[in-house]
């Protein structure tokens, strides 16, 4: 069985992510890392591998600038078998539409893939649409946003927690799956894993290797455009009171009444 797990290199959310002058996310000047939400996908890929006797190859796939290879390396340290990094200057500024195209072509090049596994969203763009777009492009079923996933012979079942119901969704492989942060704690790379990762294959593809024309990707052909980005003025702290013998509750109710919430 072949599993491809898509991983994204994102700006560290605790390091003040920001925009560049062309309104794209600054992916070079801000420290980055493997998106935390993709670690859950790596974990589930490894659990699918460990849950079967058959031969399973887990390939970590990323699209992004040079430093994005760090996201793949982290996945290799966690236990993925090999890595693929699609890197091409023309990709910079790509929207989800173009990113899903590049990912789909890379999945096709990797070949005979049974499961494409993704996280629930990236922690930067946070659109949550790439898994669905990948399924659309690859013509595969999607079993997405699983809080739990399980293999049943040639099928994958996912529990999907919605607002009105909790559903179980099932599809036959090959398919695209995604998992939420409820799917199970992601493992930390062990020292052994970190050492082993250094010897694992990590291939770099250009757009040409995938048969994607540079004119199909990048900021200039994006199907939507960001016109302005404005830093929100920080909220200024309001009145803070210390509760002493019930004074806090009284002050709180007075405040709510003054704002007409009561």
């Amino acid at each position: 069985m072949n599993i491809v797990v898509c991983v994204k290199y994102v700006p560290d959310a605790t390091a003040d992510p920001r925009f560049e002058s062309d309104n794209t996310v600054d992916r070079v000047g801000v420290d980055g890392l493997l998106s935390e939400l993709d670690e859950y996908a790596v974990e589930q890929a490894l659990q699918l591998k460990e849950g079967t006797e058959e031969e399973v190859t887990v390939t970590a796939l990323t699209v992004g600038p040079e430093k994005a290879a760090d996201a793949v390396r982290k996945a290799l340290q966690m236990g993925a078998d090999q890595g693929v990094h699609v890197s091409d200057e023309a990709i910079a500024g790509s929207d989800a539409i173009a990113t899903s195209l590049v990912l789909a072509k890379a999945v096709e090049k990797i070949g005979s893939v049974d499961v494409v596994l993704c996280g629930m969203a990236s922690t930067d763009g946070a659109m949550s649409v790439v898994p669905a777009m990948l399924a659309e492009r690859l013509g595969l079923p999607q079993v997405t946003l699983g809080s739990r996933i399980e293999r049943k012979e040639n099928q994958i079942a996912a529990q999907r927690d919605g607002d009105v119901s909790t559903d179980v969704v099932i599809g036959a492989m090959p398919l695209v799956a995604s998992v939420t942060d409820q799917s199970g704690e992601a493992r930390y790379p062990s020292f052994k894993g970190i050492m082993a990762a250094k010897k694992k294959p990590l291939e770099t593809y250009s757009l040409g290797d995938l048969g994607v024309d540079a004119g199909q990707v990048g900021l200039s052909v994006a199907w939507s455009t960001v016109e302005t980005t404005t830093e929100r003025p920080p909220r200024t702290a309001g009145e803070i009171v210390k509760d002493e013998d019930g004074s806090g509750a009284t002050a709180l109710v007075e405040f709510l009444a003054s704002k007409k919430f009561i």
Partner: protein
Amino acid sequence: MSEVLVLVDHVDGAVRKPTYELLAIAKRIGSPSAVFIGGADKAEGAAGDLAKFGAEKVYVVDDAEVKGFLVAPKAEVLQQVAEAASPAAILIVSSAEGKEIAGRLAIKLGSGLITDAVDVAADGTTTQSVFAGNYTVQAKVTTGTPIITVKPNSAAAEEGAGAGTVEQFSATISDAAKGARIVASNPRQASGRPELAEAAIVVSGGRGTGGDFSSVESLADALGAAVGASRAAVDSGWQPHTLQIGQTGKTVSPQLYVANGISGAIQHRAGMQTSKTIVAVNKDEEAPIFELVDFGVVGDLHSVLPAATAEIEKRK
């Protein structure tokens, strides 16, 4: 005037409030047309409700071949309606499924997509709140039919009768779209409280509750509010994930947000920072949540909340 398609979010024919908000937004851009995918017997009632909130046209698509499958068939239906109607824009509620439908639809139609808009102007310019609410972004779709998913509470629903002309639409669902089947569905028990994402007031609890949410719930009920929880409270198993507010849960933007025993980590702030008024109760005066609040009480939520609840009840 061009039509603007609004995908109707409903439970068994009962239209959910965010759909009415989308109709109000659609009216700014063009002529609102609701797309109702559901049981034929539920269509008439739904169409009446949709007309009351401004739908000029209601496309009714029988869901016999749609229900029981995830996402893909609905995207096919919308594609076919869009190809017939050539709308000026397509609006979908920013729910998990709504965004996935929008993603597939964007590829099918060769159209740009903007998700999680908190406002949409008459010319289609969207406003989004990104990076944990630290930036406001204005964007516009430049290719194809703009597909925009809009967060609940982004506009006020407007009563104002539309013609509500019902048009039966028969869609063809491909076998490929039926690859992911829903094999079991357990309805969530109604809490009797407002929906978290739609509520005007949200009262939430975190680690500081110690697992006892009774005083949080009582205050919520006194204020007619929804109950929310921080990730710490959800990870501890005190509340279900559907009530989680933050980066990996719900994003809420109510008129009033009351955070109790929540420190205010970046992940949580991402889900509530755009609330109009923020109030916090926390024992730790150093808690970062106090940097955001309009009003804060440094104190034990287990004594402050019951006293406040009693006082609110007394004033009613």
